[in-house]
């Protein structure tokens, strides 16, 4: 990495931050409870649209884990998401009717909120269908992990997206509000992930899983990225570049060991494939607010009409984090 390249990335980071600063005007505050935030609190940032059915379990899951405050952006929901969130005692809510796409899929909005409220905190940036799993998450709260990361001088923690799906048609068993979505979508692909390194940003680019296997068997390069860095000790100088797939400065993307060892890492269980998915895909197709003209959603819609089963004979049923660690999807690293 030459001086010129580093400087370019620096300029790019500044540009994203300025952009985020300008985009702050698109956000209208609905309920501001940020005065509750205390110095060592773990904060969760999320942006969403029409996710009310998922929220009760989502909020409970992360409250139990030890998240102290939720900072959410509601993008023009019509199903009561906004009202529901505004009533929660530990949620600060902003809403916007502006374009999701033009805010780089919500990244600009969240970059602004993180700049403003996240500085010096451990921040978790996840979607409402993503559930963080980290080593020992069944016996230790999230603050045990962040304390350990602090003590080890680690600033960012990787958690790969693991697509979960039900056995049979994805709309066979309807999801009820408050239910654990992993009860329905309890299967995943254990070992078909392909990795390459992004030289420019230093992150790994991971693709694979059921979405590549079923939706993109002939054009695997179009399969969505699964690498994510959702847990970051935030500094106001940081910026997410593309969703939570990569950040600047690029040192934060070095969540993997290059000398044969394993760093500690987690998993984001991705419960996109519930019965709500069909409607969502149809809506996103008409809104065209998703990545590269919603190519992903188009492929889903086409394939799911013919054969809506993502399950195969070698799918694994989710048990716990130890199972994921044995399968090599995540690692304890040197945390014991």
């Amino acid at each position, binding site marked *: 990495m030459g001086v010129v390249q580093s400087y370019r990335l620096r300029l790019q980071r500044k540009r994203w931050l300025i952009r985020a600063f300008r985009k702050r005007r698109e956000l209208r505050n609905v309920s501001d409870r940020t005065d509750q935030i205390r110095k060592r609190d773990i904060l969760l940032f999320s942006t969403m649209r029409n996710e009310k059915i998922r929220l009760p379990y989502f909020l409970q899951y992360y409250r139990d884990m030890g998240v102290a405050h939720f900072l959410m952006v509601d993008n023009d929901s019509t199903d009561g998401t906004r009202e529901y969130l505004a009533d929660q005692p530990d949620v600060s809510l902003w809403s916007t009717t502006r374009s999701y796409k033009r805010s780089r899929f919500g990244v600009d909005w969240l970059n602004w909120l993180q700049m403003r409220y996240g500085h010096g905190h451990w921040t978790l940036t996840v979607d409402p269908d993503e559930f963080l799993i980290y080593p020992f998450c069944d016996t230790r709260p999230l603050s045990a992990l962040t304390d350990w990361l602090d003590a080890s001088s680690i600033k960012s923690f*990787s958690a790969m997206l693991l697509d979960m799906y039900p056995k049979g048609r994805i709309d066979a068993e309807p999801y009820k509000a408050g239910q654990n979505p992993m009860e329905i979508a309890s299967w995943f692909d254990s070992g078909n992930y392909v990795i390459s390194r992004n030289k420019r940003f230093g992150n790994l680019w991971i693709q694979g899983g059921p979405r590549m296997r079923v939706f993109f068997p002939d054009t695997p390069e179009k399969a969505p990225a699964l690498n994510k860095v959702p847990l970051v000790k935030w500094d106001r100088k940081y910026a997410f570049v593309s969703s939570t797939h990569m950040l600047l400065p690029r040192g934060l993307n070095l969540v993997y060991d290059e000398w044969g060892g394993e760093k500690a890492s987690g998993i984001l269980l991705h419960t996109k494939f519930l019965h709500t998915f069909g409607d969502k895909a149809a809506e996103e197709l008409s809104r065209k607010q998703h990545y590269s003209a919603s190519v992903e959603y188009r492929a889903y819609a086409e394939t799911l009409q013919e054969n809506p089963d993502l399950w195969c004979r070698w799918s694994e049923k989710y048990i716990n984090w130890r199972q994921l660690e044995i399968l090599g999807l995540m690692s304890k690293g040197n945390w014991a």
Partner: protein
Amino acid sequence: MTVGIVMLVHTALNRAEQVARHWAAAGCPVVIHADTNVPRSVYNAFRKSLSDVDIVRFSHRHRCEWGTWGIVAATQEASELMLKEFPEVRHVYLASGSCLPLRPVQELKDYLAARPKTDFIESATTADVPWTVGGLDSERFTLRFPFAWKKNRYLFDRYVALQRRFALRRKMPNGVTPHMGSQWWCLTRQTLSAILQDPERPVYDRFFKRVWIPDESYFQTLTRLYSQHVESRSLTLSKFDFQGKPHIFYDDHLQLLRRSDCFVARKIWPHANRLYRAFLTDAEGALKRTEPNPGKIDRIFRRAVERRTRGRSGLYMQSRWPNSGWENGATCAEYSVFQGFSELFEDFEPWLARMTNIRVHGHLYGPDRVEFAAGHEVINGAISDSAAIRDYNPRSFLTNLIWATRGERQAFQFGPNDNQKIIWDLSKDANAQISVISGAWALPLFNSNRNFGELRVEAAKMQKIEAKFLDALRSPYAKARIRIWTMAEFIEAPMEPLQMVIEELGIRSARRLSEVPKMVDLTGFGQFLQNLKNQGMHPYLMGDFPAASEPAPRVAKKPKPYLVQK
């Protein structure tokens, strides 16, 4: 006689208070030193909270930055206070605020009372210890370290480099031998007072003020001058990871800590409520007279460090992506690659599967699809048979397959028709067993019903591709176990090579093969090659075949007594 506790605290004061009360309740005097980094108001509240306990004292506060003299100064002063104020103390135990006593205090007292002259302090000469951070061991004593490693890393490194460059060194005062060891010790009054009241102490103090991490060497070195009996181990269970920072204990370590029989453990996570509750409610001491036995904890932490530094061979994932050459094995298990066998033998794949207990795939890198064994569309790990996905990242495909099927050996066919992007990965992988019958690709051409002109072009192409593969296998970088026969060589005596290959696979019985695969009919093959030559294409990879006059090699025809032919 009792044991006095010197406690160094800097955070989680509520936990320190809890532990101090626990010690005091068992009749152990406690002297507490709090870092000056603790704000005055917090410190005063802390003192006040312990004011009802009469055998707790607070010593003068020092600034304790990691790796600097402050910690030693604090220890000295607190120890002096302890010796002065509590004459009944025979052993002084140095502990931190995040230490937790695991066994009833009475057991510790009994243990020490039975060893009244023993000093428990880990103390080894610099030549003998492997644990060093920043690559400094004996230089900790011979160089000067005025800059803090954690805050002024740049100046620290520059100044070390400068001293090395000009060979600036210091001498040990009075010729003492430097020793190092865990910071947490338990010394007798005799030894400790000898160190603290030594007339030469100013000389030693001056020297150690410029030593790096003096808290791991000051007492460890000086104890050697006075102690009657040094037991070189710490009574405090404290494990360090590969960066020299202590491992932390959580609630889920409860059973492990119970079974360790250690007296004190550090470092405990301040929010590990279950641990504090379990160990500070002094259960009826079973009064075990057992020695501490941290074996199992050692194992767990050693494994954690190993996972962090060496990882799992053959695994590529979000937090393990080794640079080329650092993989500790490109794949996670042995596997076999066969080139030319399924062309030469009609039923090679089923035969191999019968003879061995391995999984035999077809051409995994075949052009149209991935030919998994038994024609499966998906295999372990939900790996798909899509050729496009495989070709998108041929290397990930191989490492994923071998990882997902670990426990069961895999074999697959390879050939010039297949995706060749994988050849260097195969050749450089020590786990690969590669067997090649060169030139056998000509057999399908020979048996096909195509125009000779096409065949000629095809043959030239195949020969070129296979030659490249053979170059890779013969390169100095090749690490796989490789065997190459020309086709002519092979059919002369096919039994021996087959036997050899099978034996390497670790077949169940090492007896002679009871069954051989059926070779394709080679009648006229020599003439076919001659025709290619006559057309100007020179097939050389199959070795020297006799021309048309003597068509098929004898070996394939003549049944041998030990063969059971189908």
